[in-house]
């Protein structure tokens, strides 16, 4: 009975030929997305494991490295990224509920959410570019004239490992954002035309999961990279 009902309702939406019902299609796409995110966790897990390994080996060098970074800029960027997640939620919510205003149709609201996410994402990356370029000025880029910023600690040379991890972790995170933003650019016109609506919004919702995941990765990177030197005096 329930099966027949869902089948009936499912036919309303677009169901690919190999699925029986829209429900099955929806569950499949979310399960697929969550599994993809699982492998992303393991992917970032590798570099986080490297971070933990070296931080245990060279605690002072990591504190010294972290103290070279601007906590204020990092915190602001975290805020920007959280805002981008908020606008992402707005896009998903608009698609789920079919929300429309007097002036704008439903697809427009989905698109607005995406535009907001794109703007905040671009702002984040812009700040990142500024941060990276200041590293060049301060000779903190590994292999390109790197000079250890401190000398009165054990293993000052290991600060280069810290900055390798800094560039590796933030770089991979930024790469994930760039990929996400490229996908959003493709999504924009489709959203505007109302491709996603109350009956089928799997793609927007799945993409939202991806974007929030990338956000969460940053939530871990931020304290690991920026905050670990805050509670002790400045190393020299």
């Amino acid at each position, binding site marked *: 009975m329930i099966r027949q009902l869902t089948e009936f309702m499912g036919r309303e939406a677009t169901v*690919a*030929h*190999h699925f*029986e019902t829209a429900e*099955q299609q929806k*569950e*499949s796409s979310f*399960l*697929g997305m969550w*599994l*993809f995110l*699982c*492998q*992303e966790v*393991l*992917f*970032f*897990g*590798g*570099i986080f*494991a*490297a971070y933990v*390994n*070296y931080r245990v*080996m*060279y605690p002072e*060098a990591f504190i010294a490295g972290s103290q070279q970074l601007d906590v204020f800029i990092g915190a602001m960027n975290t805020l920007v990224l959280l805002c981008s997640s908020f606008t992402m939620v707005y896009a998903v919510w608009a698609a789920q509920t079919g929300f429309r205003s007097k002036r704008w149709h439903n697809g427009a609201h989905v698109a607005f959410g995406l535009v907001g996410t794109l703007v905040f994402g671009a702002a984040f990356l812009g700040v990142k570019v500024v941060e990276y370029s200041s590293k060049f000025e301060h000779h903190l880029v*590994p*292999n*390109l004239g790197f000079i250890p910023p401190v000398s009165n600690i054990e*293993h000052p*040379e*290991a600060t*280069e*490992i810290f900055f*390798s*991890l800094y*560039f*590796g972790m933030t770089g*991979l995170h930024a790469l994930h954002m760039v990929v996400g933003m490229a996908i959003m650019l493709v999504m924009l016109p489709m959203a505007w035309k109302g491709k996603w609506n109350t009956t089928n919004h799997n793609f927007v919702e799945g993409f939202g999961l991806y974007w929030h995941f990338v956000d969460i990765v940053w939530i871990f990177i931020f304290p690991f990279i920026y905050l670990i030197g805050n509670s002790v005096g400045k190393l020299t």
Partner: protein
Amino acid sequence: MARSMTLTPDATPEPEMPKEHYLNASHGLKSWLLTTDHKRIGILYLVSVSVFFLLGGIYAGLIRLELVTPEGDLFQPDTYNRVFTMHAILMIFFFLVPSIPATLGNFLLPLMIGAKDVAFPKLNLASWYMYLIGATLTMVALFAGGVDTGWTFYTPFSTTYSNSYVTTVAIGIFVNGFSSIFTGVNFLVTIHRMRAPGMTWFRLPLFVWAHYATSLIMVLGTPVLAITLLLVGFERMFGLGFFDPALGGDPVLFQHLFWFYSHPAVYIMILPSMGVISEIISAFTRKPIFGYKLIAFSSLGIAVIGFLVWGHHLFVSSQSIYAGLIFSFLTMLVAVPSAIKVFNWSATLYRGSIAYTTPMFYALGFLGLFTIGGLTGLMLGTLGLDIHMHDTYFVVAHFHYIMVGGALMGYLGGMHFWWPKIFGRIVGGFWPHLSALLVFVGFNLTFFPQFVLGYLGMPRRYHVYPDEFQVLHVLSTAGATVLALGYAMPVFYFVWSLKYGKVAGDNPWGAVGLEWETTSPPPLHNFESMPVVDFDAYQYHQPKPHSQGKPATAPSAS
């Protein structure tokens, strides 16, 4: 028993090829290169992995040729390094890992669970293209000069010193990793969400359970290899110091990260093969498999415990002795589910009505070779003994017993078993029997002497050796020749059968399972109508549940 033992197709009235099936549903190169049909993608994979098996085999031949004499008369030392590295990389990443899942798994999984396709058909095709891109990059590196680090890419040699195409190959393997992950995600979702009505978890064929466990490892293991190779690539390209000892970098960290994937990767290779063996043994003993649930759960057990044993590759790498002890213990633990499987297969054989078909020869060969490979694995997992045998030919022999004697035997057995389903033509008789025999004999002749060599102290990855080892090396090379012959023959009779093979009919083996209830080759959407499942797997010798009245017949010696 009425429905038993029609093993030769000519006992039934001459079957005919179905008029329409997935092979003639559309024509032209484009219909293949842009197909989203899981059956065609399986065949695309079959062709590609066969090419890489051949290439990897050529490198194996070169290695064995060099080792015929104690002197290094065929290769310079550096060339030899490149040859064995390329042999391993091609065989592991471009043949063994995708071999069964991407070919037989792709073809059979939806058929076995009664689905029209895998959950994400386009992703499935994308996985094949990722494989091709990765393979192309690797081939480019190969023709430019190859890699000399060994397939393990140990740092700091790979990051700082190696003067070969490490980065290109690392990127190739990285891209190929996507293919693995896509396949894994696809299979997991397919098994969870695409089962036909009535196909409960414990009615799934064990082939499906094995692929479920394999897919878990693919999804959770591959990304760790990806990040590890990426770090090596970053270090080589941009000089980021992740593993550089000059900065205080830690080479052992690399080994931990690398083996976190690469040990479970062995189970990616062997688990699907175990799934194949379960199907074959049950079909040709005409018995329900013994201990169905235990075999199903032991697949999951292997996948889970397999993630916790990587440290046994690091017994001599300055890993803490206590960590070594724990890893040694966990290694013993992973032998338990493996042994459960072997005992259950043996129990299935007991008083079964065994038919000696080609797939069955491969399956029986698997049982013996896998057992030897597994037991020697326990020897190597023993902390003290490994110090003696680490990096010797004993290790080489051990993992070839698992990866060739185990995984490859299952692959070939499965190919012979399902070939009639895939192409609708029978492969059987003298030549396939002979090839199975040659593979078994050749394999043992190649690799058994290597156990002895290793125990006597012959290190792996050397191209010169003391004179007293020559007899064993010559034996091994002679075995490799026989083995090559055994592998070459199927290429010919499989291709021959496509045109001249006897038409198979839907179910030439009289086997049970949803894949045998559709036509051979199957129609484009697999089944005429959605199958409804009201029976357990492997119901040989038992009346179908809807024929009421008679109790299940106990298997009798026949």
